[in-house]
C-alpha cells in the first residue's frame, strides 16, 4: 500500500469537511489498475464490497478498505462464492455493491452468478475479475470473457488505469439501467501497471430499500422460466447500447488493414501499428455488431487482436464476417509489443523487425522459494520423513513441490487437497501414508466441507493444517483465523482445533512448526491413527503481519561434515561456502537474511550450527 493510501486512511478517521474535500478532490496521479478500480467503485457510491484475496486482484479490496467505513462496508470474505453472495445481498438491499476476485475465483463464485444473471439487480452489482494471461501466479489462464458469455452478463474491458476507473464507475450505471450484474475484466498487466489517473468526487446514491418482489428475487423454476427470455432481450438491448461511438471507438487510419481490439491489447496495437484504422471495443460481450460490420466493410482486411481466447473473432465468424486473428496471434500466454509485432509480421501487415543478435550470457535459474525461516518448511520435511503421498493445495507452501523439498505430489485448486486425499485413500491400493497439506486460509476457504466428507466416509487420511496466521501468498491479508478484519479491527478468531473437532475428527494435535522433533512425532502418531487425523502446525508467517528477525545462526566450519542435510530445507539463507570436504561443499549462513528459526540447527547431525549470539 503506498504512502498516499495510508495518508488517506488516517485522514478519514474523522468526518471533518477538510478530509472529505481532500478525498473528493480532482487530482491526476499514477495509480495501478487495481487502485483505479477501487477508486471508480468508491466514486460510483458503492456501499458493500467483499472479496477473497487472489493475485492479481488483491489490492482492489485493500484499497477499498482505505476509504471511510461510513462510505463502504468493505470486507474479506471466506471465499469468492461467499463474497459474491454478500455483494448480491447488498444489491438486494438496494445499494451499489461490488465483489472482486481473480479469474479462478469466479469458478468458485459461478454458482450464484449463474442464478443472479436471471434475477438481475436492485442496487448496481459489479463483479471485478482479474485474469492472469501468462500464468504469472495462478493455476491456469482461463478467459473470463467466456464466462461472461456463458452467464450472459456484459463484460467491460478497460485498456489502462484511467479506463479502469471510468469503466468501473460506468459498470454500476449499466447494471442498474439493464437490470444485470456486470463484469469488469482486468488482467495482471492492467491491475499492476501504474499510469496517470484523474479522479472525481464520490456520488452518493440513496439506498433503494429491499424490493419485495418474490417473482424476481426467488429463482424457483416457475420464476426462472419467466426470467430467461428477459436475459435474452437484455442481451440484444446491451448490444445496441454498446453501439455508441463513445463505447466502441472508431479511430480513422490506414484502411488496408483494420484492427479490432480490446483491453490492454489495444495499447500493443497502438505501439506497433499506430496508423491502422482501429475499432477499440469497451465490451467484448455483447458485441455491437452493426458498428463492427460497418467498420469491417470500410477496411480491406480485418484482424482481431485479443489476448487469450478468440471471443470477438468467433462472434465475427458466426456473423459471417471474414476476420482474421488467432491464425496469427497466440491463444496462450500474455501479449507484449513483440508478440503482437511478430504476429502482424507473420500476417504480412508489418515488416518483420530485424531481431537484434542476442548477447551470449548464461542466466541463473531463480524459481520462487519458501522464505528463510518459513514455518511451512518443517511440515514438508516431516512428510518426506514418513514418505507420505502428499496432496497439496494452493498457497506459498505449493513452492515445496520443487527442489530441494520436492514434497508435494498433487496441487489442483483451493481446498482440493483433502478431497483428493479421500479419493487416493478410497482407491485402496496406496501403500504410503496419505497426507493432505492445506494452509489456514485455504482450509477455511474450501477445506471444511471436504474434511466433513472425510470423516463421514471414514477415510484413512492425515490432514496437516499449516497455520501461519495469514493469507501469505497474496501479501499478508487477514482471514477468520487471524481475529482481524480487513480494516484491522478485532473480531472473533476461529480456533482450528475446535473447528476440526466439530467436524467429527477424533485425533487432532497442534504443534509448534519450529519444533522439528514434535512435528515429526505428531505426524507419525497421526498416521498410525485409523481414520481422519489432523495435525495443526502453528507459527506465524515470517513476513506478515510482522517481519520476523531473530538472532541469526552461524556454521562452525570445522564441525561441518558437508553432509548437505541442512541444504534439504531449501532455505535461501543457507548456501555453499568455498571450503570443500571430500568433494562436497561445506555450508555457510547469510547472517543478514537468517532470522534464527533454528530448523537447520535442529536437523544438523554434527551439531555445528549455533546462534551467533551464543
Amino acid at each position, binding site marked *: 500500500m*503506498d504512502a498516499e493510501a495510508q495518508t488517506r486512511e488516517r485522514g478519514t478517521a474523522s468526518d471533518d469537511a477538510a478530509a472529505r474535500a481532500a478525498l473528493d478532490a480532482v487530482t491526476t496521479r*499514477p495509480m495501478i489498475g487495481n487502485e483505479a478500480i477501487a477508486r471508480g467503485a468508491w466514486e460510483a457510491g458503492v456501499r458493500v464490497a467483499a472479496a477473497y484475496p487472489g*493475485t*492479481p486482484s488483491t489490492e482492489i479490496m485493500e484499497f477499498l478498505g482505505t476509504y471511510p467505513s461510513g462510505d463502504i462496508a468493505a470486507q474479506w470474505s471466506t471465499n469468492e462464492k461467499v463474497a459474491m453472495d454478500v455483494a448480491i445481498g447488498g444489491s438486494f438491499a438496494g445499494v451499489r455493491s461490488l465483489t472482486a476476485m481473480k479469474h479462478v475465483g469466479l469458478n468458485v463464485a459461478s454458482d450464484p452468478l449463474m442464478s443472479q444473471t436471471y434475477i438481475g439487480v436492485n442496487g448496481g452489482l459489479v463483479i471485478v475479475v482479474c485474469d492472469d494471461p501468462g500464468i*504469472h*501466479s495462478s493455476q491456469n489462464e482461463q478467459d473470463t470473457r467466456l464466462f461472461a458469455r456463458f452467464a450472459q452478463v456484459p463484460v467491460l474491458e478497460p485498456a489502462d488505469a484511467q479506463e479502469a476507473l471510468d469503466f468501473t464507475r460506468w459498470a454500476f450505471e449499466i447494471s442498474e439501467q439493464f437490470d444485470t450484474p456486470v463484469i469488469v475484466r482486468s488482467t*495482471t*498487466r*492492467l491491475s*499492476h*501497471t*501504474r*499510469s*496517470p489517473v484523474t479522479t472525481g468526487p464520490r456520488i452518493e446514491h440513496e439506498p433503494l430499500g429491499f424490493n419485495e418482489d418474490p417473482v424476481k428475487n426467488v429463482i424457483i423454476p416457475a420464476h426462472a422460466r419467466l426470467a430467461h427470455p428477459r436475459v435474452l432481450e437484455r442481451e440484444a438491448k446491451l448490444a445496441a447500447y454498446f453501439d455508441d461511438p463513445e463505447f466502441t471507438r472508431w*479511430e*480513422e487510419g490506414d484502411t488496408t488493414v483494420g484492427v479490432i481490439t480490446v483491453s*490492454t491489447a489495444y*495499447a*500493443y496495437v*497502438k*505501439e*506497433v501499428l*499506430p*496508423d491502422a484504422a*482501429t475499432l477499440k471495443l469497451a465490451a467484448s460481450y455483447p458485441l455491437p455488431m452493426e458498428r463492427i460490420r460497418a467498420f469491417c466493410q470500410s477496411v480491406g482486411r480485418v484482424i482481431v487482436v485479443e489476448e487469450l481466447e478468440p471471443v470477438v473473432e468467433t462472434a465475427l465468424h458466426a456473423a459471417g464476417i471474414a476476420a482474421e486473428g488467432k491464425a496469427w496471434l497466440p491463444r496462450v500466454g500474455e501479449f*507484449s*509489443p513483440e508478440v503482437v*509485432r511478430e504476429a502482424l509480421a507473420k500476417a504480412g501487415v508489418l515488416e518483420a523487425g530485424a*531481431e*537484434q*543478435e*542476442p*548477447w551470449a*550470457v*548464461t*542466466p*541463473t*535459474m*531463480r*524459481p*520462487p*522459494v*519458501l*522464505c528463510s525461516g518459513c514455518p511451512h518448511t518443517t511440515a514438508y520435511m516431516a512428510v518426506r520423513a514418513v514418505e507420505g503421498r502428499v496432496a497439496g493445495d494452493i498457497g506459498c507452501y505449493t*513452492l515445496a513441490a520443487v*527442489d*530441494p523439498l520436492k514434497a508435494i505430489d498433487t496441487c489442483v485448486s483451493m481446498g482440493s487437497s483433502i478431497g483428493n486425499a479421500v479419493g487416493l485413500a478410497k482407491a485402496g491400493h496406496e501403500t504410503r501414508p496419505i497426507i493432505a497439506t492445506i494452509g489456514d486460509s485455504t482450509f477455511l476457504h474450501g477445506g471444511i466441507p471436504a474434511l466433513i466428507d472425510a470423516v463421514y466416509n471414514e477415510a484413512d487420511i492425515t490432514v496437516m493444517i499449516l497455520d501461519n496466521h495469514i493469507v501469505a*501468498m*497474496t*501479501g499478508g491479508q487477514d482471514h477468520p483465523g487471524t481475529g482481524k478484519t480487513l480494516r484491522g479491527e478485532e473480531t472473533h478468531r476461529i480456533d482450528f482445533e475446535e473447528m476440526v473437532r466439530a467436524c467429527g475428527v477424533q485425533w487432532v494435535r497442534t504443534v509448534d512448526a519450529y519444533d522439528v522433533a514434535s512435528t515429526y512425532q505428531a505426524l507419525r502418531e497421526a498416521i498410525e491413527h485409523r481414520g481422519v487425523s489432523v495435525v495443526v502446525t502453528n507459527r506465524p508467517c515470517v*513476513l506478515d503481519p510482522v517481519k520476523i528477525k531473530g538472532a541469526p545462526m552461524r556454521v562452525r566450519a570445522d564441525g561441518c561434515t558437508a553432509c548437505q542435510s541442512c*541444504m534439504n530445507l*531449501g*532455505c*535461501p539463507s*543457507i*548456501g*555453499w561456502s568455498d571450503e570443500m570436504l571430500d*568433494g562436497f*561443499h561445506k555450508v555457510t549462513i547469510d547472517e543478514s537474511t537468517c532470522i534464527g528459526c533454528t530448523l537447520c540447527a535442529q536437523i544438523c547431525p554434527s551439531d555445528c550450527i549455533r546462534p551467533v549470539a551464543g
Partner: protein
Amino acid sequence: MDGSSQKTPAPRNVLIVGVGGQGVILVSKVLALICQRQGLEVKQSEVHGMAKRGGGVFSHVRFGPKVWSPTIPRGEADVLLAMEWSEGLRWLNHMRRDGGTFIADTRRIVPPFAFRSRKYGSQPSYSPEAPREVMEMVGSGYALDASQIAADLGEKRAANT
C-alpha cells in the same frame, strides 16, 4: 486520444530488475513519480506475487509525451538497471544492443536452486560470466559493487539509492 501518434517522439525506457526485497518496485515508483512531475506520461509495470519469495523481480518504466505499451518491447530498453548481477544478465537482451546502458550491481545473490545438485564436486549453477567480460561486450555502462560501496558508507541497505 487519437491514433496520430507516429510523429510523437518515442518514450524512454528504463528496465529495473533484481530480486525480492531489494527495492526494485520502490525505485521504479520513485522514478515514475519524478517523470510524472516533469509533465511526462508514465507507465510503470510490474508483476507482484512472487516478489517476496526470492524470485526475480522486474519493473518496466516508460516515459515520454505519449506511452502506449505498459511493457518495454524486447531490445528497446535504453537503460537496464540491475540490482543483482545475474538478474541483469537475464534481462540483457531486453536492452538496446545499439546505445543501451547497462548499470549493474555486481553483488551475487545465489538462489537455493543453484545448490540442488548433490553430485561429487558440484559447483553452484550461477551465471559464470565475469563483470569485466560482460562490460567489455556491452560497451556502455557500469558494473559496480554497490552493496560494498553502501556498506563502506555505513548502510548496506542504501545500495539502491
